[in-house]
């Protein structure tokens, strides 16, 4: 996983090359500093061993060393800035790429994926996990290299100065590396576990706040607090475990480092006493070690970064690697000038193991209206979703203008088919932009005309800001009926050849619906219209009505035919027309299949 992220970062060749060059330059200058320091100590000391020597040249050389020190410091800083900046920039670019890829992938993944996953989870991957990967590229990757060069080159320098002392000073590296990898594994596990617990805590809090009226209505504060405390304490325990691992690890690393430092003072000191080494050389060793102290302290953080990047990367690529279930066939053709003749031939469909449609066949021709009615869970909405290929049918075939929907491009198919859903999602932008959502470049008059046909123009016009009024969060809250009307307008603007109303007038009063239908008559006269509804008055006028039950067409025909048949449609008709007061005494045959899991 780490490798895959690294490969992504490595695509920015130029930046990477410069970054590495800067890393090398920075470490060279950094390594030079201890040399300069050690040499000057020796020079200053030279007088002690040879009191007769002239101090003049020594002083000049000291000044030269000083000048070099300033230069080395400045250059090291400059290059360090360069590589950290490049590192950040590479991290940001990787984040940008991932973000775009993620966004694109989310738009491509089929409905079935979005049905299965939670928006909160998708978002936290798109925000927090991308961040985790970014930080990894930025800090961990280049810093690891920097540290490796520092240790490698330093090792060479030190071992060539004094191999025994050199080996001693490097002995902490394997210890630290071992600790780091052990704790990485542990941290990864607890990190994942903790994220999961925090997710559960989030759910508890979200539901509580969202359902505050229920909580208060039932005086359930104590109960809710105990739910919260349970999750919260579990999360806290895991957090403490994480802290424990992390602290044990990082303090031990510092300890190993300092112990080695002390050993160098000891062995080095003995060497100096024995005359095998100068004080300046010992200072070099100590200064070199001092240089490593900060990176070693950060090593702990890097380990954490690795752990987080691995988890984050796994979670991201899990989604990025998914192949959308619904995509264009190779060589799929555009649907040219669609007329909108829809044909279902023996269509079967199931969500998982649960069959929803069991052999549905019908034909909808341009200029005709098909009504679909049936109990909840009978599969009505599924029919609507199969036409624009939000899902693929399990067997059988669906065609438009004689082309199987799987043989044409998704773009052209979905342009031809407009589904007005019962659940209307509005974007938090202006009324106008919501209405023109599918055709942002359409003429204003067309958009207003569509809104007018949907019987919403008058209301929008009455708002102080008119069409520029913001919808949702920070603007007006539209009622359910108004949202549905806006959603109808949004679909009309697209002028699709096939319009499917999927229970999309449920919150609109019957009179307004009547007016919408009248206004649309002109638009729909040469288009295919499919109306799915609970309310018979919405579809009684259809050319053909299908009564769907248990995924099959139980009855079909015009309203009059169906009434004459005296079957389930008639029973439903009577149920809706009969005065509501007489209801609820006996359970008719309709009720037995009345409850399904899906609608």
């Amino acid at each position: 996983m780490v490798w895959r992220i690294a490969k992504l970062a490595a695509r920015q060749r130029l930046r990477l090359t410069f970054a590495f060059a800067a890393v090398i330059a920075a470490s060279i200058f950094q390594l030079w500093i201890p040399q300069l320091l050690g040499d000057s100590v020796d020079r200053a000391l030279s007088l002690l061993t040879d009191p007769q020597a002239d101090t003049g040249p020594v002083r000049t050389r000291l000044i030269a060393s000083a000048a070099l020190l300033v230069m080395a410091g400045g250059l090291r800083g400059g290059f360090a800035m360069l590589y950290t900046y490049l590192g950040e920039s590479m991290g940001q670019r990787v984040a940008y790429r991932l973000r775009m890829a993620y966004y694109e992938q989310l738009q491509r993944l089929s409905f079935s994926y979005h049905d299965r996953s939670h928006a909160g989870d998708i978002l936290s991957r798109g925000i927090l996990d991308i961040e985790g990967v970014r930080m990894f590229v930025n800090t961990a990757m280049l810093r690891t290299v920097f540290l490796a060069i520092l240790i490698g080159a330093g090792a060479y320098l030190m071992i060539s100065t004094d191999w025994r002392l050199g080996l001693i000073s490097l002995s902490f590296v394997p210890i630290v590396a071992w600790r780091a990898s052990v704790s990485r594994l542990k941290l990864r596990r607890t990190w994942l576990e903790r994220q999961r617990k925090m997710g559960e805590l989030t759910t508890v809090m979200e539901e509580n706040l969202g359902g505050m009226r229920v909580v208060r209505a039932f005086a359930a504060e104590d109960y809710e607090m105990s739910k919260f405390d349970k999750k919260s304490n579990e999360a806290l325990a895991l957090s403490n475990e994480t802290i424990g691992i992390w602290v044990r690890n990082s303090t031990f690393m510092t300890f190993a480092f300092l112990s080695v430092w002390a050993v160098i003072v000891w062995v080095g000191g003995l060497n100096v006493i024995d005359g095998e080494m100068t004080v300046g050389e010992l200072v070099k060793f100590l200064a070199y070690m001092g240089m490593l102290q900060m990176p070693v302290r950060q090593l702990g953080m890097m380990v954490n970064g690795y752990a987080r990047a691995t988890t984050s990367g796994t979670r991201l690529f899990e989604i990025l690697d998914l192949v959308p279930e619904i995509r264009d066939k190779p060589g799929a053709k555009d649907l040219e000038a669609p007329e909108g003749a829809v044909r279902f031939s023996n269509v079967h469909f199931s969500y998982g193991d649960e069959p929803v449609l069991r052999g549905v066949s019908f034909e909808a021709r341009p200029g005709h209206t098909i009504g679909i009615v049936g109990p909840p869970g009978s599969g009505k909405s599924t029919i609507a979703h199969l036409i624009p290929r939000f899902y693929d049918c399990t067997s059988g075939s669906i065609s438009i203008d004689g082309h199987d929907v799987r043989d044409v491009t998704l773009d052209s198919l979905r342009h031809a088919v407009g589904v007005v859903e019962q659940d209307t999602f509005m974007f938090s932008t202006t009324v106008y932009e919501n209405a023109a959502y599918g055709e942002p470049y359409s003429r204003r008059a067309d958009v207003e005309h569509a809104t007018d046909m949907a019987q919403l123009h008058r209301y929008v016009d009455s708002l102080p800001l008119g069409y520029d009024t913001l919808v949702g969060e920070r603007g007006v809250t539209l009622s359910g009926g108004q949202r549905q009307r806006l959603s109808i307008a949004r679909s009309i603007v697209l002028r699709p050849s096939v319009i499917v109303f999927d229970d999309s007038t449920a919150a609109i009063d019957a009179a307004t619906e009547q007016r919408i239908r009248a206004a649309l008559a002109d638009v729909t006269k040469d288009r295919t219209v499919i109306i799915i509804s609970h309310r018979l008055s919405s579809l009684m006028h259809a050319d053909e009505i299908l009564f769907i039950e248990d995924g099959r067409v139980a009855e079909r025909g015009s309203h009059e035919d169906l009434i004459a048949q005296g079957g389930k449609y008639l029973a439903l008709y009577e149920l809706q027309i009969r005065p509501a007061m007489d209801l609820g005494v006996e359970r008719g045959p309709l009720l037995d299949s009345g409850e399904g899991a899906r609608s």
Partner: protein
Amino acid sequence: MRGGGGRGGGAWMRTSAGRQTAEEIFGDAFDGQVISRFISYLKAYRKLMAVTLGAVLVFSATTLAFPLIVKFAIDGGLDGSGNRALLGAAVAGLFGAVLLNYVSNFLQEIIVGRVAMRILFNMRRAMYLHLQRVSMSFMDKTEVGRLMARLQGDVAALQEFLETAVFAVGDMIILVGIIVVLLVLDPLLGGLTLIVVPVLFLVRIVWLPYAKRAFLKAREMSSIVNGALNENVNGVRVVQGMVRERLNFEMFNDKATATLASQQRAALFGQSLLPVVDLLTGAAMAVVVVVGGSLVLDNALEVGVMVAFMLYVQRFFDPIRSLTMHYSTMQRAMASGQRIFEVLDVPLGIRDKADAVRMKDIDGSIEFRNVTFGYYPDQPVLKDVSFRVEPGETVALVGPTGSGKTSTTALIHRFYEVWEGQVVVGGRDVRDVTQESLGRQVSMVLQDPYLFTGTVYENIRYQKLEATREDIVKAARAVGAHEFIMRLTDGYDTMLEQRGGNLSIGQRQLISFARAIVADAKILVLDEATANIDSYTEMLIQQALARLLEGCTGVVIAHRLATVRNADRILVLQDGEIIESGTHDELIEQGGLYSRLYTLNYASFDDMPDELIYEATKGYRGVS
């Protein structure tokens, strides 16, 4: 979560308009008020904090001691005299210091880490508990996403801060320690070396405003990008249905590119101090080499001191560097801290009186005595409303949107305080009894059934932990939910995902009915669902409703004619006043608003065209 911090000021508490701008803007790195309130959370851990303080001091002292010990070793044994005993003593001291350093380091980090974590959890809990008690009007006005951003995002920002704060405090102590030691070791050399410090501070003063601006911009941009992602995820079905993928991708690309640019700029500013710091480090070392070296040559300074200086200077800037690195973390933390305390400062809405009594075994009567109430000053929603509901009676509230039906039911439960008049439940003013006991007497079914993640069983039982399994099955049977529950995969133990998203709306309604039965209250307040329910389910619900109201006092906000006609009495509200009252037949006879609405012949009052509703609410828009 909504992109970490939410966008813009928006609806966050209209009463604190001045604070809206603070939503996204970085605070100062230090905010005395936030810090001092934060410290008040530390008080509970006084002993532990004392131990930590000790550990920090030992840690800093030992860190400072290392170069000194080396100096001692060099001056005592390495400058030609060759005293092994002194070296041995120095090394022994060094090992002792290393060990102490290890122990103190471990202690400080583990204690601070865990205490910090506990404090964060405590703060979150305090916020959460507070939100359970703030006024309902606050909750009405505030989006859940915004609150979640505080409970999660802001607490996480504080966590990041606390994790680095330990280092920062230790670094500060070490910085001060180094300055003191340098000046004590050799005032002249020390003074000259420390000249770099004011220079650095000057540079920082120039740098700060630019960096701040760059950081701010970067943060704003990334919250815009996250907002866009959020919207696309939630609206993905519309996006795909309308084939907007390409355009959205391009629009998102613009935002992401702008974010990239601002992030890079911020990174540049973040790093630009680095060469300055390193240059100054070099300069300080140069001073040590030239001045220290000369002094050594003049025999005015021991070589060990010079070495000690070198070792100190090397570490000198580490604290300053990490303080710079943590600057933006600290700013973020202060802003988050402010937002957290803002939540905690939201005044508690309704509190029990000191002498509030527990209400039990009441008769179930409800009485409104000249009640006037509203949500905004000068905009009363209920005007001088009086009525009485007898025990066991079912009263239907009817009226157009905004007429005050929902407010009436909310007042029975004391979600809000009346402006004038009295609400009397079971013979007692609701303000004289504990809210908890009132809640046990009045159960409520909301318009939109609200279920929690958990099993069906847990949802029906809810807070009534003493209810037995039989009670729950009995309640489910009573409302006709038992059959479909048994058909679920695990029956009553089926997990409801996403607040019951795997059930139909009618099924959710029935479960919420069963929950109300289990609660076993004398009074039932019910807001009938207006949501689209098919005829089959509606029939089931009508039957369930009858069972639900059996044997208790009922106040029903009725939308369906069937419900209205089944009620013992109908109250018709308009513009916050009761304009008609009586049985269905009486009201039809009166020929008032009710009969007018009734003769329009809609199956439900919600089916009435907007025009009629507008007509009825002319010149008046309120909250209902």
